[in-house]
């Protein structure tokens, strides 16, 4: 099991857990949040016209007030502005890491699922070994080799999520391949290529949207964790994890420096989960 597999497994059973079939309040709110996050990432100036790096030593360490809704940091930078502007790098890192993980996962999973027993066995053993580096350990190993930084942290997170994607894709391929409708297509005289193109690929790839949505939430949290640990983006960059890392020093006096960036990470992760489940349900009940 990996984080991703656990998340995916839970998503496909969300109906049972009391989530309504129709578009629920949670999903609508999550949809709006996702929209806001996208706006902050693409056009942060619309929501926060200030300069995220603008220093104002006179107003350092101001608690949340009317002028600075989320307060200010040690150099008097407005936390709200920084959080909004930080969306871009956090989402970008999350998306890039997911793309890397998903890409590797698709390659490994397809190899294992399509190329016969020997390849399947080999890839499976390989994945099993990777699972012995749980959570962020694979990422840490990667960073110790290639050094810290935003780029390595992104790749590291992508790498450590890849085995999860690979296993899910492999399982999905294998289960679709042995479905009754694939057999029915064989009986209708369809060629292997036609069956692959019309049935197997669409039914394997469609769940990947859900996976990717769930995965972005996880990747953002992990990337922020690495930044927080000082291995990814570094302060004064307006990246959520790095902001939290900077706030760590002042935790006894200026809680808002840590609280608001973290809140946005949580909101993003929750949004990703709720949206992922919503998409999954919609796809299965179409």
């Amino acid at each position: 099991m990996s984080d991703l597999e656990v998340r995916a497994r839970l998503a496909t059973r969300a109906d049972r857990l009391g989530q309504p079939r129709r578009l629920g309040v949670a999903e609508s709110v999550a949809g709006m949040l996702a929209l806001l996050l996208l706006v902050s990432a693409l056009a942060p100036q619309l929501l926060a016209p200030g300069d995220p790096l603008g220093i104002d030593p006179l107003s350092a360490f101001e608690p949340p007030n009317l002028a600075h809704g989320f307060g200010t940091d040690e150099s008097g930078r407005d936390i709200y502005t920084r959080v909004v502007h930080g969306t871009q790098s956090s989402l970008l890192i999350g998306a890039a890491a997911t793309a890397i993980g998903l890409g590797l996962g698709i390659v490994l999973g397809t190899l294992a699922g399509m190329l016969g027993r020997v390849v399947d066995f080999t890839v499976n053993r390989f994945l099993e070994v990777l699972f012995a580096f749980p959570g962020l350990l694979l990422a840490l190993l990667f960073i110790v080799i290639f050094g810290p930084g935003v780029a390595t942290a992104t790749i590291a997170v992508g790498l450590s999520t890849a085995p999860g994607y690979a296993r899910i894709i492999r399982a999905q391929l294998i289960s679709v391949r042995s479905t009754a409708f694939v057999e029915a297509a064989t009986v209708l005289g369809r060629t292997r290529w036609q069956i692959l193109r019309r049935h197997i690929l669409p039914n394997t790839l469609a769940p990947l949207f859900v996976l990717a949505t769930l995965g972005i939430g996880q990747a953002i949290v992990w990337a922020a964790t690495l930044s927080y640990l000082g291995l990814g983006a570094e302060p004064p960059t307006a990246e959520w994890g790095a902001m939290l890392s900077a706030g760590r020093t002042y935790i006894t006096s200026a809680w808002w420096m840590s609280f608001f960036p973290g809140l946005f990470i949580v909101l993003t992760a929750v949004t990703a989960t709720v949206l992922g489940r919503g998409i999954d349900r919609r796809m299965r009940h179409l």
Partner: protein
Amino acid sequence: MAESVVRRRAALRVLGRLAGRLGGALFVLWAVASITFFAVRLIPGDPAQAVLGGPGSQASPEALAAVTAEYGFDQPVIVQYFAQLGRLATGDLGRSYALNMDVGPLVLSQLGGTLVLAVLSLALAWLLALALATWSTRGGLVAARVATSLEIVAAALPHFWLATSLIVVLSIWLGLLPPISTGGVAGLVLPVLTLAIPLAGFLGQIMRESLLTALESPFVLSARARGESERGALWIHALRHASLPAISLSGWAFGSLISGAVVVETIFARPGLGRTLLGAVTLRDVPVVIGVVMIVAVAYILMTLLTDAASRLVDPRLRLS
């Protein structure tokens, strides 16, 4: 007589399975060792330099020569590889240059703290998840929605933010608990809470789903039709079924706890593998990183075997096949 033959066969099967498991575990360990060995060779530049903290470390030529000699960096890679495997097989994990001590004893001394943290967190997460699941199955749709929301949010909480928030609220504002680990029981509360709450979010969802399935299953209906009480239906039948997926998830949970320990031990200044690992990563103390990764791999494999055994204990069907 036939009985003894059957028993002997069963014993042989068990032995065979154990041997298979042991072989699998050894394979994973060998692969982990190989991956780390070749990964270290990927570090650009002089490997001796890398071992001593990377290009910027300005190690003295004497130190470089000593490392080159110890690791045999002047020998062919394949020789180095087998020498490394040989050392690992005898339990020699190399020497930390940053801390100037042997990695083996270092890692072992840190193992206990992390294990205590992980085991306590796992236990608390189980308790929280169980409580939430049993409560929500009785409360109808509203309770189900509340539980779902709690679980989704809990599962989305990053350890570092949860830890920070707990410190701010419980230590700084309310002054209830020490903000850093003091070694006593009070110092364990916040780290354990930090690790347990997100995990409880995951475990709770899985437990609740399987609990609902079990409670709606025909065998629980049959039990109720025999006059079984709600409590009996829950404790005798449903919870046992509900615990199965959660048990099989505990291997994964343990792994993610170890990963979370990196953050939690750092924030709460608690000695343990996680903090050692982060320190080593920051200083590029390669032997320590490899040592920690290897010991975590061993712990993870053991935990997988343990959850497997626990599943067999709860589910007699697994013992039959």
